């Protein structure tokens, strides 16, 4: 009944879709065997490498695994403050 009302008023999506989405995400991590610690290490390494070339807020760098069109992707979002003038020299 609760589920029916939810759907009627355009509320939450089916619980099975929630289950599916959660599973897909958790399996990406399981399959890549990337633990949260390893993800954090990856983030730190990325900060180190990228800061050679770009000015950015270290805390704003966001790394996560995602899935789109049946492809597993590593998503890295870096809000850039400044491109360093002498990069590449």
């Amino acid at each position, binding site marked *: *009944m609760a*589920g*029916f009302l939810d759907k009627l008023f355009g509320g939450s999506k*089916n*619980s*099975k*879709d929630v*289950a*599916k989405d*959660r*599973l*897909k995400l*958790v*399996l990406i991590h*399981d*399959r890549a065997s990337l633990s949260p610690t390893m993800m954090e290490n990856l983030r730190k390494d990325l900060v180190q490498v990228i800061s050679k070339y770009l000015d950015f807020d270290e805390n704003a760098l966001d790394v996560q695994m995602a899935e789109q069109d049946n492809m597993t992707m590593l998503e890295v979002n870096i809000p850039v403050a400044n491109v360093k003038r002498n990069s590449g020299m």
Partner: protein
Amino acid sequence: MGEVIVVTSGKGGVGKTTTAANIGTGLAAQGKKVVLMDTDIGLRNLDVVMGLENRIVYDIVDIANGNCKLKQGMIKDKRFPELYLIPAAQTKDKNAVNEEQVRAICEELRQEVDYVIVDCPAGIEQGFKNAIAGADRAIVVTNPEVSAVRDADRIIGMLEANGLGNPVLVLNRVRPNMVKQGDMMSVEDILEILAIKLLGVIPDDDNIVISTNRGEPTVLDQQSRSGQAYRNIVKRIMGEEVPLMNLDEQEGFFTRLMKLFKGN
């Protein structure tokens, strides 16, 4: 030469032992010579599911250690002359046998019978390694739940890493009405996530509890829907093409009346 098939899952309580018992019994009912082997040392259960708990003299540890001959350790089933059970040991721990010993037992058994069905313990430790040691192919059992599917995925990966690629899936405890309402993942959802071939789907069925109470595998019950699903699985294992059964529950008048009142 017989075939060794391991029934595994990762997560406990999804229906591994029930599935092993029903597949083994179903194959025997088709006239095959079958050994059911319980490798869940310390937590044996295949004996009670089969209703053979009073006949146990020797167990798998006795066979592995040479305390008895293989034939002595094979308990004869009550129903079929060519169905046998090798029970797990109840008092020892899971390290009481090793992979080499299980492999050797499987090799000896496959000379004698058509199918060896190995019931694997839950988990991914020594018991799992023992269970898969002598297997030619694997059946992964899961339920349409997040935790069970996650563990199944892990097990599929481990099977592949151990040379048992292309395992097949038994999806157990499906509730068609919940699937219809969008509150349970469907067969298609789970196949999409796990990317695995389907062996069969078992509807959630009270008859499983009843048949386990009695120690009579439901595959022999011509009336039960889970029994029909297991009979189909048995035929597919033997190489027959059998379409998936229609899982829609037949609703009695009373059920429909209740639903009318509940408003869904």
